[in-house]
């Protein structure tokens, strides 16, 4: 299905957030996720299902002031 990952359209076979991260090579990365603007805790990624057009945000540590 087609979803948006960090603003970019992506075609994924995954049906959960956890599987999508694995597909994107981010399974082990230090990241946090939000789906359609709502935080998805790490423990909930496996049970959080994706549907066509979902917006997935994957954020990582970055410089800040």
């Amino acid at each position, binding site marked *: 299905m087609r979803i948006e990952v*960090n*603003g970019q359209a992506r075609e994924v076979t995954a049906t959960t957030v956890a599987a999508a991260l694995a597909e994107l090579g*981010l399974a082990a*990365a*230090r*990241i*946090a*996720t*939000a789906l359609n*603007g*709502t*935080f998805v*805790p*790490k423990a909930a990624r496996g049970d959080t299902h994706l549907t066509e057009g979902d917006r997935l*945000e*994957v*954020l*990582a*540590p*970055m*410089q*800040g*002031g």
Partner: protein
Amino acid sequence: MRTFYGVMLDTPLMLGTALYPSPAIMAEAFRVSRASVATVSLRREGRQGQAFWDIIRGFGVHVLPNTAGCYSAREAITTAQMAREVFETNWIKLEVIGHADTLQPDPFGLLAATEALAADGFEVFPYTTEDQVLAARLLEAGAQVLMPWGAPIGSGLGLNNRYGLKALRAAFPDVPMVIDAGLGLPSHAADAMEMGFDAVLLNTAVAQAGDPVAMARAFSMAAQAGALAHGADPMAPRDMAAPSTPVLGKAWL
């Protein structure tokens, strides 16, 4: 002694991690300044996150994630939740921005987000103005620290409203407060600390200086000098001169 959610800081300097010429210069700035807190953020995964996080962890300082760039309470709350998971801390420097040119806090969004996050176990450091009414509401909402701005973020203007900041400090004598944003020179930091603020938070003034490492050290010395001076109970200013050399015993010439 006022603590930050029970944490006593070794030095009154909080330093940002952005805008340095290189990671090595940032590391050196942290080392020489002995900053006790590092602010960090979350951005879309660019594969550099883990490496950056490893550098910051190596500093051995407290980490204060921010919600920089959020323009609504909802955005800031979600960002805070994500930051708590990634950085493994309940501390959050809460920014809800209301205006793109001044980066002035949106007081209404800030209050809503503070209330929600404090109820969810966060230890909120709200980036606010010197407004006393807003300060009281933020404290009621669960914030136990306030971070009033000196001047707009990145402006380097110093303490734009000394009267307002002084009044805020006096109105809430038990609340730990950090002057966050707008500092440009070490004298601004010393001024803030002399006024009785508990720490200063800065980034651009150090990172964008011609020599960030020297400037980090200068800010550190100034902040500590200001804190020492505040604790030493400064003399009251007076309008007329008063001789410091004894008059008694002066020669009759």
